């Protein structure tokens, strides 16, 4: 009798032990996952900290306003001149150009894939779009340098290394982002919207462009902004086709230097004040990206508030 009791007690002890071990394991796993997620947050904070700390000396000595609005960058002159206005304008021009070329093509492709594409062709299309996203940027650069630049020089104007060449290359590069995000958001529009439009006598095109796209608006915008993020941060492909002259381009056929190009061209050898100025260029680029992310969050929040469409 006593034996049996003892045994029972032992069993419950063992059971409690097992539960406790399981709890510890679970807690351990939880902390491990927490650590992993903290790592990415930590990386972002560290990058922020070092970029802005590195940029501080330049901002202090040159002055933030002067640094941003002065249009002469001559780091090896005596005394050196640091002003990145031309580069900011260059980045903005090239990105806008990429949008002008990439966004309409991207949205219409998305409409085709979501609403018109025969089911046999669809897998092929998605494959190719994914492939487009996977091509390394230096390959885009080569493509631009060997094909687009000579084409512009031959049939249009200037020497081809231009805002236009960079815009075309970037326009192609942002296509996959714009297409994928837009397609998903067009597909997410409830069928009832189209059916309602058709029932009211709209043609298929009218239903898509006057009902479907407005309903998917915020998703499409998000796609465009992700595309802009890619375009503004792109380096290698742009360096190879933009010409990198330090001027404010007066036409799309003129050469241009972007913020990223300025960093990659000069980072290797810069020292002292020049180095700090390059880091400060990076900080400005970083601010652009932060701003874009904020806009993106804002759009997403808006979309969620509007009832979770897209």
């Amino acid at each position, binding site marked *: 009798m006593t034996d049996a009791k003892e045994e029972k007690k032992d069993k419950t002890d063992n059971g409690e032990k097992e539960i406790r071990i399981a709890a510890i394991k679970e807690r351990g796993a939880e902390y491990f996952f927490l650590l992993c997620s903290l790592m990415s947050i930590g990386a972002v904070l560290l990058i922020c900290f070092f970029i802005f700390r590195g940029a501080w000396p330049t901002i202090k000595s040159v002055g933030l306003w002067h640094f941003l609005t002065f249009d002469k960058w*001559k*780091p*090896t*002159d*005596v005394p050196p001149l640091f002003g990145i206005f031309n580069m900011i304008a260059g980045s903005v021009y090239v990105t806008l150009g990429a949008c002008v070329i990439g966004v309409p093509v991207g949205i219409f492709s998305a409409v085709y894939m979501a609403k018109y594409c025969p089911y046999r062709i669809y897998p092929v299309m998605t494959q190719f779009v994914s492939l487009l996203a996977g091509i390394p940027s230096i390959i885009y650069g080569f493509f631009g*340098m*060997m094909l687009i*630049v*000579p084409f512009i*020089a031959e*049939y*249009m*104007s*200037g*020497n*081809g*290394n231009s805002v236009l060449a960079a815009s075309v290359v970037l326009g192609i590069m942002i296509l996959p982002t714009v297409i994928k995000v837009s397609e998903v958001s067009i597909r997410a529009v409830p069928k009832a919207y189209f059916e309602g439009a058709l029932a009211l006598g709209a043609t298929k095109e009218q239903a898509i462009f006057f009902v479907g796209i407005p309903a998917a608006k915020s998703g499409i915008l998000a796609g465009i902004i992700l595309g802009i993020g890619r375009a503004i941060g792109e380096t290698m492909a742009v*360096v*190879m086709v933009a*010409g*990198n*002259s*330090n*001027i404010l381009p007066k036409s799309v056929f*003129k*050469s241009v*230097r972007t913020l990223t190009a300025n960093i*990659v*061209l*000069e980072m*290797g*050898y810069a*020292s002292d004040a020049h180095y700090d100025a390059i880091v400060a260029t990076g900080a400005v680029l970083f601010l652009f990206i932060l701003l874009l992310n904020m806009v993106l969050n804002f759009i997403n929040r808006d979309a969620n508030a509007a009832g979770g469409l897209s």
Partner: protein
Amino acid sequence: MNRKVLLVGFGLALATVCSGFFVSAFAQGKAKKREITVISREESSGTRGAFDELMKITDGKTNMLFEEAVIVSSTDEVASKVEVDKNAIGYTSIGAITPKVKALTVDGVVAKEENVKNGTYKISRPFVVATRTGTSLPIAADFVAFIASKSGQAVVSKAGYIPIDGAPDYKAANLTGKVTLSGSTSVEKVMEKLKEEYHKLNSNVKVEINYNGSSAGIKDCLESKSDIAMSSRELKPEEKTKLAGTTFALDGIAVIVNKTNELSAIKSETVTKIFKGELRYWNDITAQ
């Protein structure tokens, strides 16, 4: 529906005709004046430093390079830009000239090694390896000694550059370890061969080389990130206080243009004017 198709077809036809006119108008404008595409290197480049100084594009304080010049970041990229652009002019190391571009005769002298060596071709610069003064790195010193020796100089002349006369003999000292180099992209071709040859004699030494431009290499060496700096320009006076340089080869800088360019000779003043942006059209040069 038919009307729609007709309309779209008409629109497309109109667009084609218009763009045809547009393109031909541009093409005609182009035929009259051929604008020169000036191609230069980033400011870190030793070739650029030497070229700017020799052609008086800089006065030591202000760089007067034409501000619309296309900037590329390596020796090979200059050649590939010149190769595809009919109106391009660039400069590159004589050893790096490819058959796909044309080197111009400058002031009547052909850009050839002999002419650099006998001093008639003026646009030339030294290749230098430099180590920090005041530190003793036996392997680095041995590698530099090899480069400056008879066996090293034989490699230099085989690679198409001009060796230095009176080189001493070299005997391998059986060292073990690692030596790191960084610097000029222009010396890559010859340095890789020197590395190979050195490795045959010293199989226990690992040679690591990073090509990132002359100034970057000098900076690396000063900051002890590498043992030896490779430079394709003379060391500046302030660099000479901290570095001991050894000139191991001479190299000419050739002015290169596209294969289709009708020009085959140019004056050095003209080159200066082109790179300063004072001369903008090939037509003005051919007319001279």
